[in-house]
């Protein structure tokens, strides 16, 4: 597959994570969620963090989003500036009192972008995620897949430095989930964001990412760091190729 030129990735990391550990206090003294996590992320890389439930994947994402502080260790972004973040959660986490348009526009309101350009950008995003005709719908009238598309549009609208996805498709049915993979893959092609996505699906991670980190059971440590070169844009058929199968087998072996 020639022709779709993916720009060569520069090798200076945009995100450096060093010796990150997280301990939660509980009755037995403490629960080690993450232990000594270190890795670098290059600009525009799509990294999947794969692991069994209870491996601290979500904790890692929450630390990177600045929602909780790490117990020890640190991470730096770029030259040390605070990254702007777009986050998608397991549930769509829409505001039920806001319409689709108003939900997508939220980050621009928070960043006090003027109304005119906010509206323009919102319309672009609605088109990008294919929600034309649902601009004024309320979240209660959306299907799970549509709601998650609103959440993705909301995460992208302010052009964040870092896109953090926390099992965004876990609550969707299998058919919708696979369609969303293709859509997200295309979106990433169009927007070229640095993405860190947490998942427990091997297929999902291989279909979307260029690199997969496998975490161990609690406390989460990096067990495997695998980069691979499946051609973009990815179509459904890629999942039936032998290369995909081999990679899947390798990942399967790494997960306890």
């Amino acid at each position, binding site marked *: 597959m020639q022709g779709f030129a993916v720009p060569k990735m520069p090798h200076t990391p945009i995100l450096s994570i060093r010796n990150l550990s997280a301990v939660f206090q509980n009755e037995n003294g403490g629960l080690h969620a993450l232990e000594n996590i270190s890795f670098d992320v290059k600009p525009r890389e799509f990294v999947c963090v794969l692991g069994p439930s209870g491996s601290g994947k979500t904790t890692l994402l929450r630390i990177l989003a*600045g929602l909780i502080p790490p117990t020890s260790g640190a991470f730096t972004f770029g030259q040390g500036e605070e990254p*702007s*973040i777009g*986050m998608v959660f397991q*549930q769509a986490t829409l505001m039920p009192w806001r319409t689709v348009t108003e939900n997508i526009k*939220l980050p621009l309101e928070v960043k006090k972008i003027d109304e005119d350009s906010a509206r323009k950008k919102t319309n672009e995003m609605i088109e990008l995620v294919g929600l034309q005709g649902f601009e004024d719908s309320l979240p*209660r009238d959306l299907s799970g897949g549509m709601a998650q598309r609103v959440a993705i549009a909301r995460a992208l609208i302010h052009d964040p430095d870092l896109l953090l996805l926390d099992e965004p498709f876990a609550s969707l049915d299998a058919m919708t989930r696979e369609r969303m993979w293709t859509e997200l893959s295309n979106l990433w092609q169009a927007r070229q964001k640095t993405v860190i996505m947490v998942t427990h699906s091997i297929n999902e991670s291989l279909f979307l990412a260029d690199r997969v980190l496998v975490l161990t059971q609690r406390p989460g440590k990096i067990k495997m760091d695998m980069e691979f070169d499946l051609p973009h844009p990815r179509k459904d058929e890629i999942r039936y190729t032998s290369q995909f199968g081999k990679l899947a087998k390798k990942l399967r072996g790494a997960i306890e």
Partner: protein
Amino acid sequence: MKRFTPIILSTLAFLLGWDLLTRYSGIPNFILPSPLSVWTRFLKAMNDGSLPHHTAITLTEIVLGLVVGVTFATVVGYMLAKSRSLEKVLSPYLVASQAIPVIAIAPLLVIWLGDGILSKVVICALIVFFPVLVNTIVGIRAVPTALYDLMNSLHASRAQILWKVEAPASLPVFLGGLRIGATLSVIGAIVGELVDAESGLGFLLQLGDFQYDTPMVFVAVFTLIALALMLYGIVRVLENKFLKWQN
């Protein structure tokens, strides 16, 4: 129009039953006046200006009491919802204050604050305070944590979290508290006026009582019911306007 048919029919049936009772039971008019004599008394009180005057006084007390009570309850409720330690310190006092019937402390408040409008406003505010306080706490506590995560990941300010998340998310429960508070506020004003007052519907009610002007008592009671229904209706209108997203 169809919507109102049941209420119109039941009102007519009530009036008819009442009228028949006064006609054939032999109960004297000064104990149970007929609907017609209450209506005549109502027209008279409207014409001599006494009813509008006293209604305006009571309504002023209610509205001021509501404003003061709701404002305090919302601010205190928000602080309590946000701080568990503050709640631990204050909640015994708040619960104890609710154990005292307002009727019991109303005479004290009238002694301290005088028989004018101020004591009634305070009694009204006190009675409104608790339901609005409780619902503010419940409403704020029920805001989904995921929405806080979302706002924090966007580096939103506290003010933005308050106005874009906490206020709209807690509004349904808050308005439920306001609905209870609005109807209770009428009771607060009347309790204060019954203790001691120179004007207001409670004063009118007591005057009618002393003078065996029972139709006047009925007029005052019906006016109070109308006020309570009106306040309830206003909250319902607010709910319909702001909670369209619910269902």
